[in-house]
């Protein structure tokens, strides 16, 4: 484990990404302390330009709501929705991929055709439809994002299982009489963890983007301030008050970028042999 940490820390981009993400998480956790009033409250003069007023350093929007409060509470929504939807998607993806890869044959054919149906529909379009059907709230958003993002995990896990199940140590596990579930979860899955972790970290970033896009389209949770909603609300005033869109945009950009950097760092740290060019 320490060797893994050392390899991860050697990657400067990953460390920087981790720093930014931690900052976002801290802001998200302490949002109610930083901004005790609701982000939906009109607290000041509308359209205060950011960085001009000491009381509202990030300015106010056209209704006089504090943009700083919006950013802080938006971080909560982004982190909450992206993490839960990724966990759900990984659980579904690992389950389906593991069963398809381990049993193969007809089971594999059936599950992969189902996966392909989900993969052929554009992710965002399907998410929009699902949220629209279930009425927008935090649960339907999490479910919609999970449903559109599990197929790549399933395919990845299936591929890993297909190659791992041919390995002699899996045959050995069969020979000593282990049951299939023990082989899947005790023997194969631990050996497939590294690519799953890397994919999951990148899925968190995609989930943030999907959630923002949904909110931008007005399909966010009505009770939760989110970055996508802020951009959507500000777009009508893009010429007059560009920073109103740009600030939440930067928040999305930095968070997604930091998660991607972490994902890349994890990939390098978990698969050290890929980094050595031309090595054996």
């Amino acid at each position, binding site marked *: 484990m320490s060797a893994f940490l050392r390899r991860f820390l050697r990657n400067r981009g990953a460390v920087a990404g981790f720093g930014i993400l931690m900052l976002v998480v801290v802001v998200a956790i302490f949002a109610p302390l930083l901004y005790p009033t609701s982000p939906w409250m009109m607290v000041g003069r509308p359209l205060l330009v950011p960085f001009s007023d000491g009381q509202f350093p990030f300015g106010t929007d056209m209704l006089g709501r504090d943009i700083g409060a919006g950013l802080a509470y938006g971080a909560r929504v982004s982190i909450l929705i992206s993490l839960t939807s990724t966990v759900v998607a990984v659980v579904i993806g690992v389950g389906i991929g593991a069963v398809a890869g381990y049993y193969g044959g007809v089971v594999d054919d059936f599950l992969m055709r189902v996966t392909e149906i989900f993969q052929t529909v554009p992710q965002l379009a399907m998410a929009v439809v699902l949220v629209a059907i279930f009425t927008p709230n935090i649960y339907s958003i999490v479910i919609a994002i999970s449903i559109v993002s599990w197929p790549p995990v399933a395919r990845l896990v299936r591929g890993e299982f297909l190659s791992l199940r041919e390995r002699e140590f899996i045959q*050995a596990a069969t020979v*000593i009489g282990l049951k299939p579930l*023990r082989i899947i979860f005790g023997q194969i899955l631990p050996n497939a963890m590294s690519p799953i972790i890397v994919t999951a970290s990148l899925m968190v970033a995609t989930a943030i983007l999907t959630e923002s896009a949904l909110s931008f389209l007005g399909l966010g949770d009505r009770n939760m301030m989110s970055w996508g909603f802020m951009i959507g609300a500000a777009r009508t005033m893009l010429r007059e008050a560009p920073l109103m869109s740009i600030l939440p945009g930067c928040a999305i950009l930095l968070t997604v970028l930091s998660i991607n950097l972490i994902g890349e760092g994890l990939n390098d740290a978990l698969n050290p042999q890929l980094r050595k060019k031309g090595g054996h």
Partner: protein
Amino acid sequence: MTQTDTILEISGLGVPLPSVGDRSHAITDVSLTLKRGEILCVVGESGSGKSISANTVMGLLPPGMSPDAGSVTFKGRSVLGLGEREMEALRGADISMIFQEPMSALNPTMKVGQQIMEVMEEHNRPADATARQKRMLELLGVVGLPDPESLQHVYPFRLSGGQRQRIVIAMALALEPSILIADEPTTALDVTTQAQILQLIRDIQASMGMAVLFITHDFGVVADIADRVAVMEKGRLVEMGTRDEVLDNPQHPYTRRLLAAVPHGRPRTDPVPKGAPILKVENLTKTYVTAGGFGRARRVVHAVQDVSFSLARGETLGIVGESGSGKSSIGKCLLKLQDIDGGRILFDGSDIAPLSPSAFRPMRRRIQMIFQDPFASLNPRHSIARILTEGPVAHGVPQSRAMDRARELMDLVQLDRSALERYPNEFSGGQRQRIGIARALALDPELIVADESVSALDVSVQAQVLELLDHIQRSTGVSMIFITHDLRVAAQICHNIGVMHQGRLVEYGPPAEILVNPSQEYTRRLIAAIPGRAQPH
């Protein structure tokens, strides 16, 4: 110039290891001379530094390693100081190399003829494309491949291991190098194919008059091919002499140990234990069908055809054959790792073939397997203790009893008990194979199937593991099916031997009879291919 001119001289060569391991240098103070037109064998176990020595000559050391002492002189010119550009000119043209694994040495997406010509193009010799084409066809003939005209258009995956190795040799010979370095070129091959490739290298060496530096761990091979022998142990040269000197009168104890480790092939003669058979196989048939697709015909391979034999309690049966003979398929069928297409497998009187996986699972305890690859057969993420106790626990043995048994097994397979806390990557190939044996024994089986369980090991380690298997079989009275390509090994530890050829059991009998008086032409070929038997030169 005379035939005894020195063409390559390595003197006082030292290469340090990058990280501090059990020794500071991969090789220390190695001095060798290679003369024109001779075959010098460098012999040693894995980790003895024999491959590092060869790679230094070729300038092919892994990144982070470079020699810190000594010199390498090729035709009077120092090689060590040369830049990458100059080394490239030297490689292939003056010194070429063939490797152990013929598949990874060839580009899978390129036709073999093209690959041979590429070597010539790279060095622009001959400069004319049609001349290169002609030379390529000629080379395919030289390495004994049939029908060069059509074979040049074939991709590597269509060829057998032996044929691929011939292609690699053709590539190495393309520019008529003065030195050929062969790094364990036959280790990955069957005995019969090995015998053919050794013969080919000998013939080519004699007709082209080049010098060969031949690296091997097997003294049987040395006896077949060497003019002179250098023995390496732990990065140092411990003995050097002509073949007959070293083989007949070894001076260094390490050389003697290596020589003693070569399977002697003396047949086991104690009688087969009497009693009811534990296993009876009747008309076993297994066919593989690969699905056809665009432009591919459906391929049907009759891996096992109508094979019958029986095994008494306490008997060891050897199943011998080349790769593709169906011997491993039999092992997999017996353990129900794959379904069978016909016949019966009577284990202790009842047919296990039709049982469903869950119906067979309680019986698995009684039939165990020792696998071929010591590196792939242990889960890298599990401790040795977990590997040894998982099976018994799954069959209802309490964890504490399983742990006690695991400790006993460590003693039995001669590993330290502290090994239980460690993970597979901390062990050598031989040690891992001992762990694999302990895993099979943990369930107190009545039948053990050992599938090529010693063939991935160095000869010296192989001898130790064989001795262990023999000891365990004799002391516990477990029945064993020993699958191998090596007739010598089978003869040593088996009561009876079955010879497999193209899916059929062609010969069956006690080893003394089979070795001395084989009834089948194929068995005679297998016996003739045993290294160290053929009369060189």
